[in-house]
């Protein structure tokens, strides 16, 4: 844990060192990559919010006693887990307009990423909710707590710590998947690197810097997840 923190610090220091050492070299393409990074961050935050919301809605919907809700959640999960993200992004951007729904590139990217990863997250949430001991539900039934309140106040708070590791892994996957948004004409880190490569032809430097930026992002989420996990499980007894 502390080692990884040190590794990240070292990487950032290395990046800065590289900037200083070869300032005239990096100056030509780094600004474009950093502009791309802001697009990546913006898309990541918006689609992460949608992804977490959809995970809980579909994951809990799949356990709903009302059959149509259960079926709808299952169909959503199977369709979005079964198709490729790139195809979904393309479909949202190029096919939906002919159904009368015109999306901006940002909307298409956020919807595609959020819905696609929401389907994977729904399985994580479903697993976490079923991991809550059934005695908890029986006890709240015995205490005459309504079903929705039992779900909201009893089951979900206990499911969240179980779901956090899975969801934080998926969030890393999602940030990596934002590299695809250039398919819908957004200029993110990846697309900016391709453009800069065509202009300056400094292939190795440009793509290495892009890889390092992505690596820093995913390590950041990994820490965030680990800290959140420690924070939400600190009241639990540690085994051994």
């Amino acid at each position, binding site marked *: 844990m502390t080692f990884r923190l040190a590794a990240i610090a070292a990487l950032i220091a290395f990046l800065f060192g590289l900037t200083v050492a070869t300032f005239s070299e990096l100056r030509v393409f780094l600004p474009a990559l950093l502009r791309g990074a802001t697009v990546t961050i913006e898309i990541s935050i918006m689609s992460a919010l949608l992804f977490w919301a959809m995970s809980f809605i579909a994951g809990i919907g799949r356990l709903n006693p009302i059959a149509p809700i259960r079926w709808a959640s299952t169909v959503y999960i199977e369709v979005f887990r079964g198709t490729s993200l790139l195809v979904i992004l*393309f479909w949202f951007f190029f096919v939906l307009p002919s159904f009368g729904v015109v999306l901006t590139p940002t909307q298409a990217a956020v919807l595609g990423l959020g819905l696609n990863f929401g389907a994977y997250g729904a399985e994580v949430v479903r697993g976490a909710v079923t991991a809550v001991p059934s005695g908890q539900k029986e006890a709240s039934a015995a205490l005459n707590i309504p079903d929705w309140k039992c779900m909201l106040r009893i089951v979900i708070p206990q499911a969240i710590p179980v779901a956090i590791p899975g969801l934080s892994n998926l969030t*890393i996957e999602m940030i990596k998947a934002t590299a695809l948004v250039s398919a819908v004409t957004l200029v993110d880190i*990846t697309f900016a*690197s391709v453009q800069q490569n065509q202009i300056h032809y400094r292939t*190795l430097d440009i793509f290495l810097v892009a890889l390092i930026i992505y690596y820093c992002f*995913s390590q950041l989420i990994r820490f965030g997840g680990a800290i959140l996990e420690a924070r939400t499980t600190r009241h639990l007894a540690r085994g051994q």
Partner: protein
Amino acid sequence: MMDWRWDFTFDVVLPRLWEAAGITVYATVVSFAFALVGGLILMLLKMSAFKPISFVASEVIEFIRGTPLLVQIFFLFFVLPQVGITLPPLTTGIMAIAIYNSALTAEVYRAGLQAVPRGQWEAAVALNLSPYRTFRKIIIPQSLPPIVPALGNYLIAIFKETPLLSFVAVGEIMHASKLIGSEYYRFNEAVTIAGIFFLVMSLVSAALVRAAENYVKRSILH
């Protein structure tokens, strides 16, 4: 409202996507095969008793896992020619997918091996079994049940990663539908059929993976 032409679907889209589907399946199978071997090598390096090697291997795995596959594809696609290695885009793409998934399958193998209780190793030593027989008869059969379903899921994941190859002009299914879209300026049919193709193939292969999982459980453990 809906702009869908069946004659266009059957005359243009389906034949061309059918051809491209072959490349998609080929890329999937070949990169999965390489990822299986690559993962084994990375896992062995990571489990190495020599600390520097295992440290470097685990950091390499971490870096590969922490960066997007698309950027790795671009990296190989643009950097390899500059160092004098010129390969067809399909080969480069398969290489990138195989390397990326090696890092993932390495973790699968490691988890499978560590799921075998220590007592099994100790018992094999106590019974004076040779290393070959220890692995062949004791360790591998017991580590397969957790490994097989996870590897199957990676096969499906690789299948859904192959559309990324369309970024470097490999003629797989997504590239074919992009081309149809730009030639006729009709994206609806091609992209929708491509989506349905992936959905059907994933559902079928998920069923196959479940069958393989059950087979392994039944034939090895009981």
